[in-house]
């Protein structure tokens, strides 16, 4: 598979949110306004890319030689937690306003399934380092794309007359359902 197809399929066809149902919690949580959605998206791209590459190196050069493959899950989640902590400190130092906006969602990237999924997906598909980079960029890009599109739609929804029971999150899931329908037609692209 060439790298462009790999990127495109991770970005659109196997989009983690609409096709794999991964990373829904922050997707619903941060997507009510466009600006924090972009900030969160960028943070997630950075974390997924960094963590995937580090996890790949850790797996290939530490776990495999030591025959500790079964420790994969524990090592990866610790790696991700440490990496997110690092990013959090970095953003706090360099951009306090962004830090304030992202608020509680930054530590939550640790428990964002997308990061762990990306790290494990690269290993289980047997990608090499270049493919790992491309695939994790595709996965993270797909996450951000959905987050921004979704936030735009939700901003438009504000002030509309929605049935009381559907206000807030339920209507967001209806939108997600319609978006999933639209994206399923891209399946034949690659």
């Amino acid at each position, binding site marked *: 598979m060439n790298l462009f197809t790999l990127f495109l399929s991770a970005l659109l066809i196997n989009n983690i949110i609409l096709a794999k149902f991964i990373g829904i919690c922050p997707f619903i949580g941060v997507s009510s306004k466009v600006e924090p959605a972009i900030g969160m998206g960028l943070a997630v791209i950075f974390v997924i890319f960094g963590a995937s590459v580090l996890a790949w190196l850790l797996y290939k050069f530490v776990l495999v030689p030591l025959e500790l493959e*079964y420790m994969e*899950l*524990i090592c990866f989640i*610790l790696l991700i*937690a440490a990496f997110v902590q690092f990013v959090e400190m970095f953003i706090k130092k360099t951009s306090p306003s962004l830090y304030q906006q992202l608020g509680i969602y930054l530590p939550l990237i640790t428990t964002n*399934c997308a990061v762990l999924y990306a790290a494990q997906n690269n290993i289980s598909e047997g990608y090499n380092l270049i493919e790992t980079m491309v695939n994790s960029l595709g996965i993270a890009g797909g996450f951000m794309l959905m987050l921004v599109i979704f936030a735009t739609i939700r901003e438009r929804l504000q002030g509309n007359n929605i049935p009381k029971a559907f206000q807030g999150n339920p209507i967001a*899931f*209806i939108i997600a*359902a319609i978006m*999933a329908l639209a994206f399923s037609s891209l399946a034949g692209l690659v």
Partner: protein
Amino acid sequence: MEKKQGFFTKLLVENPVFGLYLGICSSLAITTTLNNAIGMGVAVIFVLVFSNIFVSLVRNITPDDIHIPVYIVIIATLVTIVKMVIQAYAPSLYTALGAFIDLIVVNCIILGRAEAFASKNSVGASAMDGLMMGLSYTLSILAMSFIRQLLGTGCLSLSNPFNNATIFDIRLLPQGYEIPLFTGQTGAFLTFAVLAACIAAYKNHLDTLEKEETKKGATK
């Protein structure tokens, strides 16, 4: 009677999935059949109960700064155990659940309960809390998979995950009347939206009841 209603209300309104929107990813992804939902439910109950127990045991000796990594290591260890057991004894379930067994680690319900409840309460209470939360998670995903399997395939079926023997398999909708959309992604989001709206409507109903009652009390 009153206690029973309280329990029922709590199960619905404080439901981790539809009420608090935790652990949504797995509840959308694996609820295509009753089998997957039960398998996932049991795995989550196991991890939740034991993670609550261990977190509660170490709650007094864990330094505050590193409590999250400690909890995550406990949870990841338990999930690795569950994964190995499922892989060894129920391979068909293992393929069906796929990456979502690993993703139990990052299921917000588990870390959430460890942080909010088990780190402050005794071992017994924590185990009980884990069991209750796990049960209401399982009930939620069972409800989802019931609707999706029924509408998507027209059948309800259950089989033994250890040897794939069928326990029951009934066709409730006549052939040609099933809606395959419901087995796919769109159906998952749609089912979730409608169920969450039902819970929200029930919550609104309770709120108005309460308001009327306080009004009555004020006029008295």
